[in-house]
């Protein structure tokens, strides 16, 4: 029988100053070096070559620093006892820009208002999307060589890449459609098909050929356009992307409308698991009924028959959930969907926390909560 309540993290961790400055040619100071030493010691890594590298003024060390950063993340997850690990997305600038910058057809805009005096950059697709440089395979090949635990590869999904971009090229291609609403939709459909066929599919092929067994498709943008046509477009893109691969696929979606999502996930082909965000919706208090997880029934009622990692630790608070609260959540979910279909993960990537101290503590409790749950049912 497979191990019950297997654990993994969703994807991202914060980046330390030595990683950020190392890439941007910034001045690495003593505090940055001390941080690298402290975590190196804690994770039992022979960190001396890294310290030497950080103190070396010569350029051309960027990739080595990225490798070190990924190694630190992998070792942290392994030390914590997660069953599946990855790089904490230390290889990536950010989930959207990392992919877009490695494709042709996109131009980044200037700053756009996010809220108050905060801004972000958004890319516009100005020409047909084409694959330019590898964006996930090198990371996979590196981590494959260093990891002692099994791997789950998180990637950014096509619907999110579509929805977070301006659509110029495909809109212009569809000007023969005079109803603007229909034009917009036709342009979005053509755009997402090219993201799948021209960008993600070739990279998936490389990943699977290189031995990737589990790819997690991150789609934070789904349900932000809450209508049937857009949800069906997401499903079609998913099915187009995963077709023909001998690999396990799962969907991660958080801070979303799950009642809407639940109606469409049964149509996702080869989707073995949903990673969701329910800890954020639950109280941290012990000894209460964990009814925040009851919305999982919507997925069941709509016919989804895969596994669930519904999120057992919140990522937007420093408050560390106790192993007992996590155990109670796990057992409640197991009561809803069965032990075999309950997997253990956080709500989302933990890069929302400033450094690795809080993620370490939270994941430690999560793994302990999974152990307690196993003991409770075995």
């Amino acid at each position, binding site marked *: 029988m497979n191990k019950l309540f297997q654990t993994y993290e969703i994807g991202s961790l914060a980046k330390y100053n030595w990683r950020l400055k190392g890439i941007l040619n910034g001045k690495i100071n003593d505090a940055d070096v001390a941080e690298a030493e402290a975590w190196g010691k804690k994770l039992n890594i022979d960190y001396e070559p890294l310290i030497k590298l950080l103190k070396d003024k010569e350029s051309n060390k960027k990739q080595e620093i990225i490798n070190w950063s990924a190694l630190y993340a992998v070792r942290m997850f392994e030390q914590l006892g997660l069953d599946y690990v990855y790089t904490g997305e230390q290889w990536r600038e950010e989930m959207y820009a990392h992919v877009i910058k490695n494709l042709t057809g996109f131009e980044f805009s200037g700053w756009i*208002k996010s809220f108050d005096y905060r801004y972000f950059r958004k890319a516009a697709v100005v020409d047909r999307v084409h694959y330019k440089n590898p964006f996930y395979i090198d990371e996979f090949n590196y981590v494959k060589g260093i990891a002692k635990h099994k791997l789950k590869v998180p990637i950014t999904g096509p619907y999110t890449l579509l929805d977070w971009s301006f659509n110029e090229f495909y809109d212009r291609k569809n000007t023969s459609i*005079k109803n603007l609403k229909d034009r917009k939709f036709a342009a979005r459909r053509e755009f997402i098909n090219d993201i799948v066929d021209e960008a993600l599919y070739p990279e998936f092929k490389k990943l699977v050929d290189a031995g990737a067994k589990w790819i997690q498709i991150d789609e934070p943008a789904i349900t932000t356009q809450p209508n049937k046509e857009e949800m069906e477009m997401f499903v079609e893109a998913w099915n187009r992307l995963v077709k023909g691969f001998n690999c396990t696929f799962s969907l991660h979606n958080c801070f979303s409308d799950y009642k809407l999502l639940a109606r469409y996930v049964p149509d996702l082909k080869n989707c073995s698991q949903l990673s969701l965000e329910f800890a954020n919706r639950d109280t941290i208090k012990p000894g209460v009924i964990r009814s925040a997880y009851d919305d999982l029934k919507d997925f069941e009622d709509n016919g989804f028959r895969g596994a669930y990692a519904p999120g057992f630790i919140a990522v937007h608070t420093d408050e560390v959930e106790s192993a007992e609260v996590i155990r109670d959540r796990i057992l409640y979910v197991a009561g809803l969907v069965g032990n075999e279909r309950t997997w253990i993960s956080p709500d989302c990537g933990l890069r929302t926390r400033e450094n690795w101290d809080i993620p370490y503590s939270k994941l430690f409790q999560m793994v302990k909560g999974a152990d307690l749950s196993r003991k409770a049912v075995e």
Partner: protein
Amino acid sequence: MIGSSIAGALPRPQELISKTRSYDRGKLTEEELDTAFKTATAIMVKTQLDAGITLINDGMLRRQDLLRPFSTHLKNVEVGPMLRWFNNNTFYKAPLVKGEIEWKDPATFGEMYMDLLPKSSELKVVLPAPYTFAVLAHDGYYKNKVKLMNAFSESLNQEIKELEKKGFKHIQLSDPAIVYSTTKVKQSDLKTIAKALEIVTDGIKAKTILQTFFGDAEPILNDTQNWAIDSVGVDLYDTNLSALKRFKVKALILGVIDARNSIIEDPIDLTKIVSTIIKTLETDDIYVSTNCDMDFLTWDKASEKINVIKKVVTELRRNQ
């Protein structure tokens, strides 16, 4: 009459953005920030005047979100948690209603630079519509959407009366929630909207626009013809053109410039589309407009799009 309008806020230019970020980091004084806003507002006004925009607004550069002036000025309303702004990757802070809403002082004056607005123009101010306010506010007092909507409408009415004294002749009530797929008004509740709009416009001489966006306006269009408003704005990237047939309200704001996409529309293409729409309408007054606020774009793109509005209007008037 063929006019033109911008359905809300304009984007902050990159230079102003740099200044706001410096201010946020404590590297710029309040006075220096104010000067930067003034300089940028002058650009917003000049750009609209140069493009011959009929309904001029100040660009709303200082306003942090549509609802914020009312969270900070109305009695018993406070600034609440940050939430996603409908289906956009941008955010607003929800008003927290903690007691009976009361108008204290003008909410929108402090954020505008009145001396930069041309006295001779048709000045427009943008305010939240009562339904959108009631949907987005966190109501800890009325516990009833209609009561909250009506209470806010009373305050809005007082705000508009003050704005009229300042010379504003057009009041845009932005109402995304009324058409957005998950918040749209039920057909059975349309009468409550009519009542709220009567409260808002009671004793008002300024012309009022109910500006819908982010959703399909078709289900409410017929009713709007009987509401106490002078015109309706429609987002034509979410509403089928066929919905506009036989529309009779005094004026129609056609949201044909997509303010959520950076593409610069072809003026010839849009002129053809608007000409086709005009043929099906029973109203003579139309405004060529953006479909929503423009602050989803950079200022460079927005100013190019404003120029497209100018070209479309020029061409339409020539063909009249």
